[in-house]
């Protein structure tokens, strides 16, 4: 993604600067009002709390509560665990698929690629329903096991593994696409050269391919972390009631407990945990642009 350098496209017409700004004004205003301002306001509202005098004064009380409350800490813990497990599983599952797609040709490869991208066209709410029907109690897997006179599975539905399965499924397409796009930068010549001097498959993977796509792997992981850390629908429907992930936790604090200040505190804490991944993501998009 890149913008053509301005000097290629600009006429010498000075009035165009204003026209351009006017044309982009509304979307830019929306970004400022609905993204930048809520973040600043969220931080402001959670460190300047109302005091007895009717004004506001500096206080870290809500943050202190979050980090001393065992229930909040358990929710944070299960969120970190889910995010980590999903990120590792996604790389382990999607890297082999992407490697296969990079070097394979033909109809079978096209079929595999089509299937790997397909979850993008399945909204997560349908996915949740499908997982309950297949892996839930008396679901299809239980039916098949029962028909073969085997014991039923311990269903992952309503355990922390439920959201993990759903989130991995949901994130396969983007991870594969990002890794595949990174593998596009690995030239066939470099691999053939390594093969010619006798490198085996693993050596080629380790010394030639992985160093070249490490950036893509990091982008894929950042994207996954940003998406999964505050995922809502899948953990809400498939996960246990307690501990719950940050997404359902924030929603429940905001709507059911009617406690926006603590919900926003949880949101700011989520921002802090993800800031590194967010900055890395923006930086690599920007770097990609200049390339």
């Amino acid at each position, binding site marked *: *993604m890149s913008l053509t350098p301005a000097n290629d496209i600009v006429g010498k017409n000075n009035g165009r600067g204003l026209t351009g700004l006017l044309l*982009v004004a509304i979307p*830019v205003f929306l970004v400022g009002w609905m993204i930048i301002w809520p973040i600043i306001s969220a931080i402001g509202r959670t460190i300047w709390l109302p005091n007895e005098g009717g004004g506001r004064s500096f206080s870290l009380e809500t943050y202190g509560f979050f980090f001393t409350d065992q229930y909040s800490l358990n929710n944070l813990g299960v969120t970190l665990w889910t995010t980590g497990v999903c990120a590792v599983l996604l790389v382990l599952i999607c890297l082999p698929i992407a490697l296969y797609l990079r070097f394979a040709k033909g109809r079978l490869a096209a079929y595999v690629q089509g299937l790997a991208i397909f979850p993008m066209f399945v909204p997560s*709410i349908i996915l949740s*329903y499908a997982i309950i029907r297949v892996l839930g109690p008396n679901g299809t897997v239980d039916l098949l096991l029962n028909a073969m006179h085997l014991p039923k599975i311990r269903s992952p539905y309503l355990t922390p593994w439920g959201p993990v399965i759903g989130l991995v499924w949901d994130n396969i397409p983007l991870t594969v696409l990002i890794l595949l796009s990174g593998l596009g930068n690995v030239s066939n010549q470099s691999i053939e050269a390594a093969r010619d001097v006798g490198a085996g498959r693993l050596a080629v993977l380790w010394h030639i391919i992985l160093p070249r796509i490490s950036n893509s792997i990091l982008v894929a992981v950042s994207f996954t972390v940003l998406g999964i850390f505050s995922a809502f629908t899948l953990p809400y*429907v498939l996960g246990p009631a307690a501990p719950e992930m940050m997404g359902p936790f924030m929603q429940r604090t905001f709507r059911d407990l009617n406690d926006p200040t603590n919900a926003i505190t949880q949101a700011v804490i989520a921002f802090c945990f993800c800031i590194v991944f967010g900055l890395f993501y923006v930086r690599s998009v920007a770097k990609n642009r200049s390339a």
Partner: protein
Amino acid sequence: MARVLIERRIDWYGIFFAALLTLVIVFPLIVVGTWAFTNVWRFPSVIPQEFGIKYWQMTLARADVWSSITLSLSLSTVVTLLSALICLPAAYAFARLDFPGRNILFFSFLAGHAFPKFGLLVAIAGIFLQLNLIGTFWGVVLIQLVGTLLFMIWIPVAAFQAVDRRMEEAARDVGASPMRVFWSITLPQAGPTIAAAILLSFVGTFYETEGAWLIGAPQIRTLPVLMISFINNQPVIQFGAVLSVLLWVPSFIALLFARRVISSGSFARGFGA
């Protein structure tokens, strides 16, 4: 010799991945599809005892299903139209005009993707609370509109930049007016990609669950929000299955039209790969 060569070229990895992905990705959806056309399916039987469309009639007779369908369609239409109205001129400006801060403003649309989404929604909801937008149609419109900005600007910018400038200049040289050039040269070339972006934002808005749930529920009940309550509270399995099949229709249409845009590298590059 020839036989040995052919045998060595059996694509075992391909067969393995194809079988695995079929099992993991297609199978669960087939199960849902089967449930939607099932009248009776009790536990020990591997296949339903009775197929039929009894539950389609019952689902479509429910008032809450109809009101959700109309609401979801009108929300998605309003959001997509507004988004096209404000984003397409902006995309043209980013692609063709120079103005102060052009690069910074262009990348500012990434901001929404650099934060965990639900956290951002909660922060926005905090502001909507003061503006009394919680539980209103326009509150949900606003939150979903913001979700479409990145795609509706970045994909059309790429489309406008891909238009062959020499053709536009040639048309100008033989005397075509700027508007004529735009309608006859620029738009036909950029059109298919822009149409795909509009389709993607319609479908994306149709399935948007988290903003609608946090900002709109319980007053604004879109189809995905209704689906959540079916999963949580509805003992009749088939209602959810029928609704899933209905819900999936827009996705199927998007699948038919948008595949080309998505398989091309520019889509993944939009995510920073």
